[in-house]
């Protein structure tokens, strides 16, 4: 197989052009996941009545559905129901005015909430109950204890698992091209349909993903060193 470097470069440039879309598809769901996932994990670890049971079931059930299946379902619901909903809420504009990327972001956000909450729950469970008790014994409230004592200790434990989920999310973001959103893979193969150089197109996409992932892992390493400085001999 010949490898056409020019076609490869063209694909790489096209892929990079749609890189911001992938960024949105990764970092918006990640932010949503970090906030709501942490709340969900806290509810489960501190056993808030009723809510903790509901969340346990919802998360387990939701994690059993492949992202692509969930994405297709949301896409169909969206296409069938958006105009009704817009009319109901007196929104201007129709389905044609909405950027479809938001469906992808929605689907990936739900996935992120589930996986992040599991990672953070694991990290929370690793913190000794004695830390909570020490907080209560000096007169802190439950919220103060969680915010000032437990969460700062949880972060460096959670970072390796979270990094893993972010990398998973980066790769999972490519499935949204199934509903017609253009991100790195779809972008890099745009020139391929003209030049027939699909091999170069996919290699270019792979290279972009690889660089992105390496950068994320490097950032995570700095972050966990910084947040875990109170721990001895943890990562080096």
């Amino acid at each position: 197989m010949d490898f056409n470097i020019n076609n490869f470069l063209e694909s790489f440039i096209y892929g990079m052009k749609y890189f911001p879309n992938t960024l949105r598809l990764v970092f918006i769901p990640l932010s949503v996941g970090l906030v709501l996932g942490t709340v969900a994990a806290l509810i489960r670890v501190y056993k808030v009545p009723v809510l903790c049971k509901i969340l346990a079931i919802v998360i387990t059930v939701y994690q059993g559905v492949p992202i692509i299946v969930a994405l297709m379902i949301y896409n169909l619901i969206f296409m069938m129901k958006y105009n009704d909903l817009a009319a109901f809420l007196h929104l201007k504009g129709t389905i044609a005015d909405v950027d479809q990327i938001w469906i992808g972001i929605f689907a990936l956000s739900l996935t992120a909430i589930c996986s992040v909450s599991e990672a953070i729950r694991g990290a929370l469970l690793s913190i000794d109950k004695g830390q909570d008790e020490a907080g209560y014994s000096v007169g802190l409230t439950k919220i103060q204890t969680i915010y000032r004592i437990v969460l700062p200790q949880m972060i460096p434990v959670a970072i390796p698992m979270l990094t893993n989920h972010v990398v998973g999310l980066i790769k999972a973001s490519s499935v949204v091209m199934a509903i017609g959103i253009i991100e790195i893979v779809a972008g890099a193969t745009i020139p391929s349909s003209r030049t027939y150089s699909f091999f170069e197109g996919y290699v270019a996409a792979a290279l972009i993903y690889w660089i992105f992932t390496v950068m994320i892992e490097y950032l995570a390493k700095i972050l966990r060193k910084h947040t875990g400085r109170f721990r001895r001999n943890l990562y080096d």
Partner: protein
Amino acid sequence: MIEVKHVKKVFGKLEVLKDVSVEVKDGEVVVILGPSGSGKTTLLRCINFLENADSGELTVGDIQVDFKKASKKEILAIRRKTSFVFQNYNLFANKTAIENVMEGLVTARRIPKEIAQKRAKEALNWVGLSDKYDYYPSQLSGGQQQRVGIARAFVLDPEVILFDEPTSALDPELVGETLEIIKKVAEKGITMIVVTHEMSFAQEVADKVIFMDGGVVVEEGPPEEIFTNPKEERTKQFLSRIISLEPTYSI
């Protein structure tokens, strides 16, 4: 004054505290002795609401609560009048020695940071850690960690400090330095309830010794009486076994 009346606590089917009543006068040092599983640690934890007792009454200073009906607000009020020294120190791992001592002052009592810092430094100097302000717990030895733990409890100026086997996680050499600090706390006239297995310490420091077994108070009285002339058979049995095993190190 600390008064615990008719406290009961059940874990599953196990009755850990069967109607225990204890009274501690201001400035008194009370040592609770007893074999493992006798409920002494549970009693201490109930006083600080780290364990929810099933029934009974608690008086700390001017606050009186029913163990079963205590509201969140009352629990917080009780906790802010008591402090606790843990067996395994339980220093906040993400905070330095001085931050550990300041936490209760700044966050719970809303004392301005500068004043809290000054008081925390005094407390740490007092326990002999003037050179360790900015060390994280992971950088301190067990004895140093427990001294920070004592400073953290002491700086809050509580009605009572509860010590839960403060030296049993330490090696024999460090036990001495920690007991020395606890003695200094006692000399300040602070009310203390100490659960310990250190007999010589109990003999030397206690105003009152309580012997517990099987979830009840078997016997209580001044140390001279309990150690030299115990009335109950169970107390005699326990003391004869313990004292013959007691290693001889001076504190």
